[in-house]
C-alpha cells in the first residue's frame, strides 16, 4: 500500500517537474497540476495509511487504530486553494496567448 502510494507520488512529481520545465504554457500548467496532485497525495499519506480504520475517535474505537483526520482537512484546503490558483493561471495563460500570439512561456518562440 505504502509502496504503491510512494511510486504514484514519485511518478506524478517527476512528470510534473519535467512538464514544468517545458517551453509551452499548456505543458507548464499540466505540470503544475500533476505536482499539486503529488503534493496532495503526499500530505494525505503523512498521516499514516490505514485500511478500514475509523476516521475519528469514538467510544468504541481502538485508540491505536484510527485514521488521522487532520491531514485530510489540510489536503482539502490545499485542493481548494490549488484549484482556484490553477484556474486563475489558466486565464493568465490565455491572455498571454492573446497578447503574444503564441504559447511560449516567454511570449516569443525564437521563430520570426
Amino acid at each position: 500500500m505504502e509502496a504503491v502510494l510512494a511510486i504514484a507520488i514519485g511518478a506524478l512529481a517527476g512528470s510534473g517537474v519535467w512538464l514544468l520545465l517545458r517551453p509551452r504554457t499548456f505543458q507548464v500548467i499540466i505540470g503544475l497540476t500533476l505536482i499539486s496532485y503529488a503534493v496532495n497525495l503526499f500530505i494525505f499519506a503523512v498521516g499514516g495509511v490505514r485500511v478500514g480504520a475509523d476516521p475519528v475517535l469514538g467510544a468504541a474505537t481502538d485508540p491505536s487504530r484510527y485514521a488521522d483526520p487532520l491531514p485530510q482537512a489540510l489536503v482539502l484546503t490545499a485542493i481548494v486553494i490549488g484549484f482556484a490558483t490553477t484556474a486563475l493561471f489558466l486565464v493568465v495563460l490565455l491572455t498571454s496567448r492573446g497578447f503574444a500570439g503564441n504559447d511560449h512561456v516567454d511570449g516569443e518562440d525564437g521563430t520570426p
Partner: protein
Amino acid sequence: MNGALAIAPILIPLAAAAVQVLLGIRFRRFRTGLSFLSCLALVAVAALLMMSASRGEGATLVYSLGNWPARFAIVLVVDRLSALMLLLTAVLALAVLPYALGRWQRMGPHFQPLVQVLLVGYNGAFLTGDLFNLFVFFEVLLAASYGLALHGSGARRVGASLHYIAINLTASMLFLVGVGLIFGVTGTVNMAVLAHLIPDLTGTPRALMQAGAALLGLAFLIKAAVWPVGFWLPRTYSAAIPPVAALFAAMTKLGIYVILRLSLLLFGADAGPESAHFGSDWLLWLGIITLVVGSIGMLGARELGKLAAYSVLVSSGTLLGAVALHNPAVTAGALAYLVISVLGIAAFFLLTGLVVPREAPEGAAQLEPYDPAIDALFAAEDERRVASPAPVVILAVCFFACGLLLAGLPPLSGFLAKFALLAPMLDHGAGATALFALIITAGLCTVIAMARAGIQIFWADADWQFPHVEARETVSVVGLLGICLVLTFAVAAPWNYLAATARQIHAPAHYIHAVMGPAAETPP
C-alpha cells in the same frame, strides 16, 4: 487586554473588501472612503497591539480561535515583532492609497478590494501561530498580488505575471511538502508546540524534520527573491504599476520575517546541539550572493523600475545575511533597516511612476485605460485636477532623499539603520566580515546608480517629462519620506522598541510559554 483584538487586523480589511466588491465601480467615492477607513483602523489597531505587546519584556498576546486548548486550536500570536510588521504594512498601505486614487486605480475594476485582500494576507501571515494557516494566508496574499500585478493589463504585465504565478505556485507546492513532512514527524503544525518538541528529536525524525524545514525555507527564500530563486522579481516589480510595486515592497520582507521568526523559534540556541542554528550558514552566504547580484543589477539597470526592483534585492540580501547571524544586536539593526528600506523603496517605486521618459521604450509599462465607460466616470474629476506647484523641484528633492535612504548615507534615517546593523557585525567570523564589506560596497553601488539616474532625469536633457503630477501623488511620496525623516530625529523610543523586539525573539521561551501556557513545562 482583550485577546480578541488580535483578530481585528484580519477582519477589518476582509469586511472592507467584501463590501467594496458588492458596491462595484459606481459607488467609487464610498469605496475610496471605505479603503481609507479600513487603513486608518488598521493603523489604530496595530498601534494598540504594539502598545499591549510592549508592556514588559516578554509580553505576548495570544488569541485561540474558538477557545480550544493551544495544542489543537488555531492561534493568533501578537508579540513585538508581529505588531511592528502590522504597523509597518498598515502605514505603508495608508500612505500609498492617495497615490493610487488618480489615474492608476481606473486601469482595472477592482484595485481597492484587491489591496484590502492583500492586507488580509499580510496581516494574517504576521499574526498566525501555525504553519498551515501561514500557508493559507500566503495564498490569500498571493491571490490578491496576482490580481494587482496584472492590474492595467498589457503584454509586458501579462508576460511578467505568467512567470510570477508559475514560480509562486511551485513555491506553494514546496511549502506544502515541507508542512507535510513536519506534520508527519511531529504530529503538529503549531509553531510553539514544534519549538517545544524539536530539542527532543533525534535520528531519522530529526533528519526528516530538518528536511521539511529546509523545504519550507526554500519556499520563503523564493518569496524573499534570494539568489538563485529570485530572478522573477525585477521583471514582475518593474512591470507592475508603481502603487502596486510600492505595496509589494513589503512582500519580500514577509519572506524575511518568516525566516527570522522560524529560524529563531525552531532552530535558536535552545534547540539542542543538533538542531541549533540549522541552516544559518546557508542563509548567510545566500544573503551575501543576493546582495552582490542586487548591486550588479542596480549598476546595470537602464530604467527606473528595474533600478528600484534591484534595490529590493539588495535589501533582501542584506536582511537575510544579517538575520542568519543569530545575534540580538545585529537583529535589532536589521529590523531598523527593514523598516527604513520598506518605506524608502516604496517611495522610490512611487517616484518611478511620476518621472517617465518622453519616448517610452518599446514594451515598457504604459498606461492603458481599462474601459472608456469607466473613464467617463472620472471626467468631472479630470477637469478640476490640481497639479502641484513646482513639481520638478519636489520630485528632485524626493529623488535625492530616496537615494540617501537606499544608500544609507547621513543625514537621513537610512544611515542610522545601516550603522545600527553594521556596528555589532564585526566580530562574527569571516562570513560576517564579508557581509559587512559587501553591504558597504552595495551602498556605494546604490549611490553610483542613483546619481547616474538622477543626472539623466533632472539635469542632462529634456527627454524626461513630468506628466501632470497630481497633488495627492506627491502627498504619498512626501508622506513616506516624511516618516523616514521623523525617524531620523525621534530615535530613542523606536530604537528601544526594536532592541527589545530583538531580545524577545532571541528568547523563544516567552513565545512558547505564552502559546502553550502551563503545558510548556510538561514533556509532550
